[in-house]
């Protein structure tokens, strides 16, 4: 589902941010990507979304070589990838329902379909009763749940999360991580970039450690590991 071979990424003429990355992620996997700040975790996720292009090497998502993907094909790639951010990125001027519906509306889904799918997504993340609230009235954990609902409402094959618990307290972080686990159990591939050591250790999933811009460790049922 995700194949990365000898991937290099360099911004302008700076030093390499990613060097010789090799990584395979299969359908249905749950993968933590860990590494110290500046290791290139966010850069790797942006490459998967084709926000940026690799300098060298190959990166394939759903069998498509992203470097060869035409510009007008990019939106259709992204419709199959749900993205969750550390800072939630919700629209403050509309309620929870509309925030989730937004991601369907802008890809041309009918209102009838939206009215069917959004409640299901909100139920999945445990926000059934808060559809008409505004994001400003929700706790951080609830806001992140809205963000997750928005990412999964179009039933993508993959969900990418960039430090989804970076702004949350430990208990709430644990709940959000369990939510990702639920989503994964339903068949969606989940890739989470994170610093949260306790969570990584707790969940016993595959852990890919980025250090000095390379993959220094990749183990099943791994634990958080410093690159030094």
């Amino acid at each position, binding site marked *: 589902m995700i194949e990365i071979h000898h991937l290099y990424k360099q911004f302008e003429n700076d030093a390499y941010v990613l060097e010789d990355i090799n990584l395979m992620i299969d359908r249905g996997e749950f993968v933590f990507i860990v590494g110290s700040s500046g290791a290139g975790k966010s850069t790797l996720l942006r490459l998967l979304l084709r926000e940026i292009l690799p300098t060298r090497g190959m990166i394939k998502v759903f069998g498509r070589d992203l470097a060869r993907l035409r510009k*007008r094909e990019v*939106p*259709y790639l*992204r419709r*199959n990838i749900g*993205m969750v951010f550390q800072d939630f990125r919700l629209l403050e001027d509309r309620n929870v329902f509309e925030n989730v519906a937004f991601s369907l*509306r*802008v890809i*041309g889904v009918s209102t009838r379909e939206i009215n069917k799918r959004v409640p299901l997504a909100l139920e999945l993340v445990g926000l059934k009763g808060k559809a008409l609230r505004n994001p400003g009235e929700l706790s951080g954990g609830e806001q992140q749940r809205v963000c997750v609902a928005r990412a999964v409402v179009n039933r993508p094959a993959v969900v990418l999360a960039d430090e989804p618990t970076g702004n949350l307290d430990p208990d709430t972080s644990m709940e959000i991580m369990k939510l990702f686990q639920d989503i994964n159990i339903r068949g969606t591939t989940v890739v989470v970039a994170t610093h949260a050591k306790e969570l990584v250790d707790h969940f016993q999933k595959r852990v890919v450690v980025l250090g000095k811009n390379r993959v220094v460790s990749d183990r099943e049922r791994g634990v958080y590991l410093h690159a030094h």
Partner: protein
Amino acid sequence: MHIRSLFYFLGEAFKNIARNGWMSVASVGVVSITLLILGSFVVLSFNVDLATHDLKEQVQIVLYINERAGEDTRAELHAKLVAHPGLAEVRYVSRADAMARLKEKLGDRSNLLEGYEEPEDNPLRDSYELRTAIPEEIPAVAKEIKSYPGAAEVDYGSGVVEPLFQFTGLVRWIGLAFMAGLAVTTVFLIAHTIRLTVYLRRKEIMIMKYVGATDWFIRWPFLFEGLILGMIGAVIPVFIIFYGYQEAALWMQNNIYFVSLLPPEKIIEVIARILIPLGVALGIIGSTISVRRFLKV
């Protein structure tokens, strides 16, 4: 484009216009002023054209044929006049015809012509009466044909024609220059308004890109915003001109009887056909500039 998407784009465009408040009002205002001036100008020039039409029609070139010109020269002259691309009408008037016309014109007083009527006494010359396809070309054509073989003299009421054409020409050029300046201002202001919208909506645009909205889906609301601003800006002057003209025409009818004006119903149609497409075009140009420069999709 799907009909559902169309409604969505229009809805978003109207929301953006409402959000931008005074910037939208300013854009519509500038479009309106530009088109109001243009529209008034068109109305005025239509009526001036109507008034000067007869005058222009009457202006013709008269070419007098040299009395000593032989048959060959006359034939050559005729051929050259007929072949001239700028001339719409070439009419030969013999001296006998000219005399007959003069006689008719004088009517009761035709006895004045006694003694000049016999061919050998006729003081008039053979001539050509010529009309150009474009009245404004008269002076240039007159100058050119003066050098034709067999031409003795060319007359076209110079001194009247040139100032008239110069004046109408000048008014037209000043108007055009002024309008071009206003059009640039209009496009600039609309572009600026759309830029503001793009800025205010940057977060939504970012999310749209992440969830896989196509570039065109992101662009359309902004293009529609420009289009709507331009259209509203055009409809306002159409109404102002229509009612203003109606009032003016009524007043003229009651106070200056001899002036003939085009009827208001005719004017509105012409004005709407010019102003609305122009307003829409200005709006679309403005928003296209902004979308290209500021909407990085």
